């Protein structure tokens, strides 16, 4: 049994585990202590314990000063007061001080009604800012294609730093300058675009204010939708359908695939498609590439390349290893390529007049879509990328009553997908999908049980062996770039025995992406999205990518043999480049 201690909070005695903080104990006692910088994403392994905002100050008997509840461990017999005038006043003053150096443009702020500072000001009943004075003003950093840094709105909770340095080990963001002039940014306050930032967006996902946001593209989408000569097609990533509902008051984990298709159609898209089609194509290519490498003594392990943040990470951090990932383009880029070639041809549309919009749970896909090597004849495969949050904003803007929409289907031919494609949205999903196909292709037998449960879960690094009738395939899975780094170092040091490794940059995979609805520090939300992903997979009638009839038709009519076919190879594969590390 765990060792416990007794503490008294506001005259209420509770018995709690010894390793608890005052904040944990207060939760147990049913007492709310406001927090701001604190963040604990339990199973996703991210903890921000900077204790820097001083919003959770409480009184502890025998202690001359106040104690931060988030960072003060309990001890036996501790007597705590959260409700004394002294504590309440100090907490409110901390928020007042933050507000005294914060813009008050809440009404037109991206985070209006979604801002943790704003919510706190309301919760603590802040009615005036007594201590006015100098307010810092900095330039917006709009240098990158994916992330906007608005230093004026930063409250120095340092969550982004923890995400960037401890979880993702990218080391891009850290505190600069001292005192009142302290800001968070890259070394020498370089513009984001000049750093080796992967734009994974985890900093955005944990930012409590609008100091870090995605680059907004909603207006561009509206503009394209209303140009009469443009043919606008939209695709949505797997992780969107299990998260978008949260923005409309639905329970986390609600599956809204049908309403999503209906909503996009109401917005005016000419064709409403599914990135899952692209995911099925990806599996055709990737599984074949893996078999090719296995049979021809190619570079092993082969790493998945669906996640552009991860690809960018290896280019910058492990430039000597850019031949390790699969050369496959990511699913939405494959989709865009197919739309502007096969689909355009089939429908008789000038690819230059076709606009492909991707709705992604991701921030870095915005930067990926702008990679010049991915465009064909100066025509980008994907023209605009918006996040789940942006889509939610647009639907509200358009007055679409999401909740009341009927379930509709995606358009065809690029709207058909399998369960294998759905699970691309979670950590472990891409490799499971690949195994479902590789199994049948290698063994020539039908895979009866498609669930590879040994590949699932939330553990940061997972290992499993898949038995392909005598041939054992060793699989590694990592999510979060810190875990990816560990995997890569093992490969570099010759310690890795894997044949194939799946890597996703965001903790949890795309369901925990930087463009998803804010989780406000609740990792349960991400876990519920994961459950929903697997539920959606089970609901599908076809669960192996190579059995998708429209994919089969695409290869027959257009691409030729997966991986080896000339068109398949030219259109669906890319190359990675060693890049500088800054």
């Amino acid at each position: 049994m765990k060792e416990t201690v007794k503490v008294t909070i506001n005259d209420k005695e509770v018995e709690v585990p010894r390793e608890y903080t005052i904040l944990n104990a207060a939760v147990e006692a049913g007492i709310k202590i406001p927090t701001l910088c604190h963040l604990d994403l339990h199973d996703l392994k991210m903890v921000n314990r900077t204790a820097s905002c001083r919003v959770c100050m409480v009184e502890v008997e025998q202690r001359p000063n106040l104690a931060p509840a988030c960072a003060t461990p309990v001890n036996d017999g501790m007597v705590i007061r959260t409700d004394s005038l002294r504590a309440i006043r100090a907490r409110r003053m901390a928020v007042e001080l933050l507000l005294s150096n914060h813009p008050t443009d809440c009404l037109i702020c991206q985070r209006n009604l979604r801002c943790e500072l704003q919510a706190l000001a309301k919760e603590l009943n802040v009615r005036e800012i007594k201590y006015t004075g100098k307010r810092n003003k900095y330039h917006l950093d709009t240098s990158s294609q994916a992330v906007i840094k608005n230093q004026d709105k930063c409250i120095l909770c340092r969550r982004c730093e923890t995400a960037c340095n401890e979880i993702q080990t990218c080391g891009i963001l850290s505190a600069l300058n001292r005192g009142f002039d302290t800001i968070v940014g890259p070394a020498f306050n370089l513009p984001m675009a000049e750093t080796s930032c992967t734009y994974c967006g985890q900093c955005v996902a944990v930012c409590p204010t609008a100091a870090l946001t995605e680059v907004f593209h909603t207006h561009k989408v509206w503009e394209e939708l209303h140009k009469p000569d443009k043919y606008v097609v939209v695709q949505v990533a797997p992780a969107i359908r299990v998260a978008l509902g949260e923005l409309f008051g639905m329970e986390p984990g609600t599956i809204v695939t049908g309403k999503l298709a209906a909503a996009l159609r109401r917005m005016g898209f000419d064709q409403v498609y599914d990135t899952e089609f692209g995911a099925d194509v990806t599996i055709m290519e990737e599984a074949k590439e893996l078999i090719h490498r296995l049979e021809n003594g190619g570079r092993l392990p082969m790493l998945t390349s669906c996640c552009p943040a991860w690809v960018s990470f290896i280019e910058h951090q492990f430039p000597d290893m850019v031949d390790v990932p699969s050369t496959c383009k990511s699913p939405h880029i494959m989709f865009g390529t197919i739309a502007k070639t096969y689909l355009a041809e089939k429908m008789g549309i000038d690819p230059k007049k076709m606009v492909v919009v991707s709705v992604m749970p991701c921030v870095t896909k915005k930067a990926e879509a702008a990679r010049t090597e991915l465009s064909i004849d100066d025509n980008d495969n994907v023209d605009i990328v918006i996040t789940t949050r942006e889509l939610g904003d647009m639907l509200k803007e358009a007055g679409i009553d999401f909740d009341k929409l009927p379930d509709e289907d995606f358009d065809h031919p690029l709207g058909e997908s399998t369960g294998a494609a759905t699970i691309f949205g979670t950590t472990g999903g891409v490799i499971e999908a690949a195994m479902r196909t590789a199994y049948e292709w290698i063994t020539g037998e039908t895979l009866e049980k498609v669930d590879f449960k040994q590949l699932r879960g939330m553990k940061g690094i997972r290992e499993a062996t898949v038995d392909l009738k005598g041939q054992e395939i060793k699989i590694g899975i990592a999510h979060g770039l810190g875990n990816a780094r560990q995997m890569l170092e093992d490969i570099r040091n010759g310690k890795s025995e894997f044949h194939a490794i799946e890597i996703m940059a965001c903790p949890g995979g795309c369901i925990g992406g930087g463009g998803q609805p804010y989780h406000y520090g609740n990792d349960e939300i991400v876990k519920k999205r994961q459950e929903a992903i697997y539920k959606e997979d089970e609901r599908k009638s076809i669960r192996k990518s190579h059995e998708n009839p429209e994919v089969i038709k695409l290869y027959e009519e257009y691409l030729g043999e997966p991986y080896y076919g000339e068109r398949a190879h030219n259109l669906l594969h890319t190359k990675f480049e060693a890049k500088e590390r800054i």
Partner: protein
Amino acid sequence: MKRYRSHILVCGGTACESQESREMIGKFEDELKKTGYSEEVQVVKTGCFGFCEKGPIVKIHPDHVFYVEVKPEDIEEIVKEHIIKGRIVQRLLYEEPTLEKKIEEQEKISFYHKQLRIALRNCGFINPENIEEYIAENGYLALGKVLTEMTPEEVIQTVKDSGLRGRGGGGFPTGYKWELTYRNKNDVKFIICNADEGDPGAFMDRSILEGDPHSVLEAMAIAGYAIGAEKGYIYIRAEYPLAIQRLNIAIEQAREYGFLGEKIFNSDFNFDIELKYGAGAFVCGEETALINSVEGGRGEPNAKPPFPAESGLWDKPTSVNNVETFANIPQIILKGPAWFSRVGTEGSKGTKVFALAGKVNNVGLVEVPMGITLREIIYDIGGGIRDNKKFKAVQTGGPSGGCIPEEYLDTHIDYETLKEIGSMMGSGGMIVMDEDNCMVNISKFYLEFTEDESCGKCTPCRIGNKRLHEILTRITNGRGTEEDLENLKSLGEMVKESSLCGLGQSSPNPVLSTMKYFAEEYHEHVVNKKCPAGVCSMGKKKATTIPKK
């Protein structure tokens, strides 16, 4: 070893060196050679004597004659008169301002008379660049004793019994800190010497490192043995080049003599020391910020717990102790804890070095027993207020100490009493103010410093200190309101109670203490728009910071 009948001790501290004391050593040697006395009389470059205001200092040993403000052109006369003829050069003696009398011997000078030198015992006496001089003063004997006769537990108990508390500001019991670090089992532990002396005007740590570096090295090795560490770091400001140079010489010599390195005194104990340079951030004196800086990270504090004793440098158990604290250790080991704890008050044992400055006649470094009164330091040692002005306040503990008015001059000072009257021991800064000082302006001055030196991590210190400074600027510009006074107090208290580390927890001390003891002066500024001391411009010049309304 060669024996000399007499030694000419020339101060080689930073202040005296900046006034040509280095050249004077050469001149003394030339003069002795010229007159044929170089075999009989030795010139020694020592560490700081503490009486920096009267430097350069030259002391003739064993006569104890103490010459002040010596210039290169005086050398010939000192040699010819004092060394050769045995006649004291009267004009170079110190003149006691209160007595208008020349004093010959160091001990009889009022500046030294009430001092008790334990930490500074060798400063101004031995040549810090010669390990043999340190050994001659029982140097490394304590380390030998510890390694051959004592268990780590006994060492810790001795330090605990002595009652020694951290001299860097916190006043945490040193033996207890060692015990906590000792108890955390780990194969790797560290000792860190905090030599990031950041208080403006304080230079006791620099003086010790310049004047007696081996005492710190020896104490670090003792501490390493006590807690189970084989590696020590000295985190020293890069702005202390002379201290760094002497430390490097001392470490080299200690290694050569086997006091650092492997199997020290033929025991199984290995210990070595490395220097790490600080870039001058005030907050790096805070132990967790210091550790972050040693690790190569940003110099900013972490929330405690975990304390360094549990998880410090590279997450290993670490004991961080200040230079002056270490300088006491060898003496405690050699003379016993009872000898040390005889000096001082109930809760604060031993001595404390203060950097006495401001409007007193004798400015310098003084080591006094705990429990001495402020009056004794200011009037007896410091020789009273300059130009017969009236005493107004004394600020102790560095830029975030409080200002103490005349009514508390007879307080017997120690860690607790200073806290009770709204100030602190801090690292030992002591600045005396007279009737010409405006207390509102003084607190603005200190807040400007702490606002600048805030690392920016926690809200109260980052924004709160800025706002406090802005309010004080308004008041000293004649634009303050009574509401400003209320806000100043409530915000000052909040910053003190809510900040993450010692910097923010003490930065409002100057403003809170002056508001308490000199309320009338604030009132005059705000209500009558007058600065009684005539220091503040009160709106005659344009205000630099006018907050938008």
